[in-house]
């Protein structure tokens, strides 16, 4: 079926199979491989993207569902080649170990900050509870998001 979707600001008018997930479309169709596939059942958050401003697991969405919508992936967060405050905070806090979970963590945190610009540590933990890190870098990840919230003031 034919769909029209805006990804990171650029419009795509494409033919898609009904049985293709949004995750596969982003990675294989558009070659936006920042979004990761891990559990593929909605438990790890590695595939987190924004659809119409809301964080979702792209492994649990069919591409066809995004027709007419706006998708933002990790590739769409840096503006004009400059990392966002949040992305800088991840670097400064040493939150990135192997890096595999990080795109999902950053997009989920971006969504959290959009709704709650100055979250407490507990609010960050709750907001990121759908994102697993196999390197176990939770303290640094949460610290990065709290710091980004402070920097927003």
């Amino acid at each position: 079926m034919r769909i029209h979707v805006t990804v990171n600001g650029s419009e795509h008018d494409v033919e898609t199979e009904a049985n293709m997930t949004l995750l596969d479309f982003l990675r294989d169709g558009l070659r936006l491989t920042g979004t990761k596939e891990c559990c593929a059942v909605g438990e790890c958050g590695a595939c987190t993207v924004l659809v119409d401003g809301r964080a979702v697991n792209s492994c649990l969405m069919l591409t066809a569902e995004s027709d007419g919508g706006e998708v933002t992936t990790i590739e769409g967060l840096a503006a004009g080649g400059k990392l966002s405050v949040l992305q800088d905070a991840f670097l400064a806090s040493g939150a990135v170990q192997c890096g595999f979970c990080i795109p999902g963590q950053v997009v989920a945190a971006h969504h959290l900050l959009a709704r709650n610009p100055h979250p407490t540590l507990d609010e960050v933990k709750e907001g990121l509870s759908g994102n697993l890190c196999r390197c176990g870098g939770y303290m640094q990840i949460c610290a990065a998001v709290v710091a980004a919230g402070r920097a927003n003031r």
Partner: protein
Amino acid sequence: MVPFAFARPATLSETFAVLDEHGDEASLLAGGTDLVIELRNRSRRPKVVIDLKRVAELRPGISERGGWLTITATTAMTDVQENALVQMWFPALVDAAATVGSVQIRNRATLAGNMCHASPAADTAPPLLVYGAVVNVASARGARRVKLDEFLVGPRQTVLQRGEVVTSIDLPIATERRAATFVRITRRRGVDLATVSLCCLVDASGSTRFAYGAVGPRPFLVADETGALSDPSADDESKSTVLRALLEQASPISDVRGSREYREAMLLVMSRRALLSSIERLGAA
């Protein structure tokens, strides 16, 4: 995923037409957080998936009318959680919706879908049951209203017949003072199914309702109308006797989340705690 056709009806009548044509070979898609998993692991192999999100009559929405609050079929958990009317009248539903999956899941998963999927551990079932939810069902043959307690039949089983769609869930707005508490045990905080969940509602007339999840083939509702449970001056021992009798319907099994014995022990403890908290809240209200 096995290939399937994708239907995007714009109205309910178009939806019924596709459903009548394909019957059991059609799967309804709302939030997709359960369905897409089943499509991928091939436990469901529909010929056609019907996306309900473009059906005009089912657009996300929560509205009040004639003493009922109506939550449409495509309303996501996040919207239920954040709605001021739900927060005011059905706070235990807010607490339960807030425990579903993760932010990402709640941004997609729908309240109606949580009921249609009919998991024994469905988080929002216990509050919906104690609040007296009614499910609105429609098909080409007409509409009917089904009490949630009758709607849920068993694991993954509802009373929905071929050709039928859930259009919304109705909650009666109480005129009487009441208070409810939702409690849940999980192994970890995010993205886990309940080991035991329950909701306890006490109202000013003295009636107490409990609904339980994850301790039987389906979430179930029990009530004490004698006033024994809600009486703040009654002693713990007599309350526990009443609670044990109510809990006879529970038939927990052992699985990865906990043993039968653990669940049985926790049921009584959690019921007592939820009851105390509801009585306290009623007093404070």
